[in-house]
């Protein structure tokens, strides 16, 4: 059977499963719609969180990025995993004890202020919407490339699928679909890696394999270092000084951003107990780590394979995958010195080969000559990754509107049924809106997605942490901190991002910090402003101090919605 037939079969089966799960897990109440009834087992929640977290970017682009960056790729690996330690230790158990539905819920009640809730609501919408538009675009690209349909058709298929299970099932439908999606995507990601690891170093565990020796007895990484240096690139494993400053700041911005992202935090409202919130963060990270420790192995294998296959080889003898990706313009070759051989070099004036880093994961099974069903599986995995993340984000947007805006601000008397209907309409509008925006994304969106982390780090993270760990923190401090933090970060990003029209140049970076890493400084400014302002203004009322005392202790946790 051809790859195409296999793809239709495997993708068809997985979609049938997602839809079946969605029908089985319909939501009957707002509590089920917002937090899956608060009854998800920690293990299932861990898997769902992992699928929610790992987007098309983690799945398709990250290994490719690392393979071109070498050591520096660690900023994504550590940045997108380390935040879960902060979540588990500093946020999840307390927010679960607090037991409401959303992040603006917590900010609004802890800081006894509608203004604080509104500021948080706006931040949540801004962060989630920029993020989801990128995901919808990813869904379109994935469908278009894999099923060989038009980009627009790809987005419409994506909208239809997400629409179905998100509108019907809310958080409950999304959670159980994500469990299935996690299984598909992790299987699809690791199977090719295992095959390739066996081929190259004879070790079935890729995480160990990329530190192993090749058939000629040399270590794979030593060999790759030498290949890189011979072509004029820096050593794959070396950590240059300049690298390290930005790796430090970008890693930190991603970590604190992770711990401040509303669609991640809200997952810990779905488990029954405080104890479950702690352990489910552990499961989530464990499931995420399986992919994140495999990715650098794939990066090393793919880079070595690529250089060995193309470098200084005759153009006419390239394997079939080369011309296939050339046709879709993701690889291009320009024979500058007319020797009909491919020169792949660091020096841009003599380099003849341009490669889109996204093809690394996709082309991997083909380069290694794996069977057609494995290639089809990778496709299904990519779609699972894109769909699961989009659904999780859309839910946050819908909840913000129906719960935080309607119920808590505009229409406090709305009935349970009315609120559920509003939530369904909000998510339907959000799905279609995000899809249309993804169809024709404003040029800056792709740039802004990565920066959503900086914005989350500089706004939510300090406000939540201080809300739990500093009893004296009051509304004046928190609101001032959030506003100054997010404005500073947004301004720096705008100023130094030419894509956003900012006038700054890299020479002007403060302490050499890239815009991607500035969220950490924004976070520190937020902390400083909050502490300073709070000490010069009135202490929070006694019932708020009691609330803080209460969330610090696990016993007596109520299901979310009981006090609703």
């Amino acid at each position, binding site marked *: 059977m051809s790859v195409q037939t296999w793809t239709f079969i495997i993708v068809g089966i997985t979609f049938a499963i997602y839809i079946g799960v969605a029908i089985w897990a319909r939501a009957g109440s707002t509590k089920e719609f917002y937090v899956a009834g608060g009854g998800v087992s920690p293990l299932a929640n861990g898997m769902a969180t992992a699928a929610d977290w790992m987007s098309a970017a983690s799945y398709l682009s990250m290994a490719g990025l690392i393979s071109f960056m070498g050591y520096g790729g660690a900023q994504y*690996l550590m940045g997108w995993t380390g935040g879960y330690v902060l979540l588990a*230790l500093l946020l999840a158990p307390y927010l679960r004890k607090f037991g409401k539905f959303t992040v603006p819920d917590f900010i609004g009640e802890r800081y006894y202020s509608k203004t604080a809730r509104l500021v948080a609501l706006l931040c949540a919408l801004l962060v989630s919407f920029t993020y989801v538009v990128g995901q919808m675009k990813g869904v379109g690209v994935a469908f278009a490339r894999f099923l060989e349909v038009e980009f627009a058709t790809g987005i419409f298929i994506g909208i239809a699928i997400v629409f179905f299970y998100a509108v019907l099932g809310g958080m409950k439908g999304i959670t159980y679909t994500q469990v299935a999606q996690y299984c598909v995507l992790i299987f699809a990601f690791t199977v090719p890696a295992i095959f390739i690891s066996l081929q190259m170093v004879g070790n079935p565990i890729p995480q160990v394999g990329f530190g192993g020796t090749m058939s000629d007895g040399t270590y794979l990484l030593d060999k790759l270092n030498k290949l890189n240096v011979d072509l004029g690139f820096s050593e794959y494993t070396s950590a240059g000084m300049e690298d*390290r400053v930005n790796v430090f700041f970008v890693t930190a911005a991603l970590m604190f951003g992770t711990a401040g992202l509303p669609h991640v935090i809200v997952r810990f409202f779905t488990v029954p107990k405080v104890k479950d919130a702690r352990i489910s963060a552990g499961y989530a990270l464990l499931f995420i780590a399986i992919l994140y420790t495999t990715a650098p192995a794939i990066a090393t294998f793919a880079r070595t394979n690529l250089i060995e296959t193309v470098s200084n080889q005759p153009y006419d003898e390239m394997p079939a995958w080369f011309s296939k990706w050339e046709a879709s313009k993701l690889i291009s070759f320009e024979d500058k010195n007319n020797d009909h051989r491919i020169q792949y070099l660091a020096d841009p004036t003599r380099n003849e080969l341009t490669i889109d880093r996204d093809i690394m994961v996709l082309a991997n099974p083909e380069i290694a000559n794996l069977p057609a069903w494995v290639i089809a599986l990778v496709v299904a995995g990519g779609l699972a990754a894109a769909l699961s993340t989009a659904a999780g984000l859309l839910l946050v947007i819908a909840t913000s509107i129906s719960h935080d805006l309607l119920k808590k601000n505009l229409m406090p008397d709305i009935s349970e049924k009315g609120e559920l209907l509003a939530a369904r309409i909000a998510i339907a509008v959000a799905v279609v809106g995000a899809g249309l925006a993804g169809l024709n994304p404003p040029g800056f969106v792709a740039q802004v997605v990565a920066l959503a982390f900086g914005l989350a780090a500089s706004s939510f993270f300090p406000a939540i942490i201080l809300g739990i760990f500093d009893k004296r923190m009051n509304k004046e401090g928190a609101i001032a901190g959030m506003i100054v933090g997010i404005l500073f970060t947004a301004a720096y990003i705008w100023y130094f991002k030419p894509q956003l029209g900012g006038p700054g140049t890299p020479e002007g970076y403060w302490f050499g910090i890239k815009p991607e890493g500035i969220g950490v400084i924004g976070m520190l400014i937020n902390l400083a402003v909050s502490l300073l302002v709070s000490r010069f203004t009135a202490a929070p009322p006694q019932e708020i101090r009691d609330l803080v005392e209460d969330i610090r202790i696990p016993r007596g946790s109520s299901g979310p919605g009981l006090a609703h």
Partner: protein
Amino acid sequence: MSKQKAQEYWKKNLRYLTILLSIWFLVSYGCGILFAEPLNSIKMGGFPLGFWFAQQGAIYVFVLLIFIYVHLMNKLDKEFDVDEK
């Protein structure tokens, strides 16, 4: 639960957090970034050590830290009789 006991529970919790987060910082920002270059001169099999911490080791330690934290807190909850029934 008495106020004093609650304070004692919270203090112990904060001590666990300080220790665990120090390790968190040390393996990632320390071994994986700040000291990565000197550590790279040490080899662990085919891996330069700094590179290994940055792309593998730190992530393993992160997972371990959460499970250790869960274990410590479950014990502490029982000890202070604040666990959920």
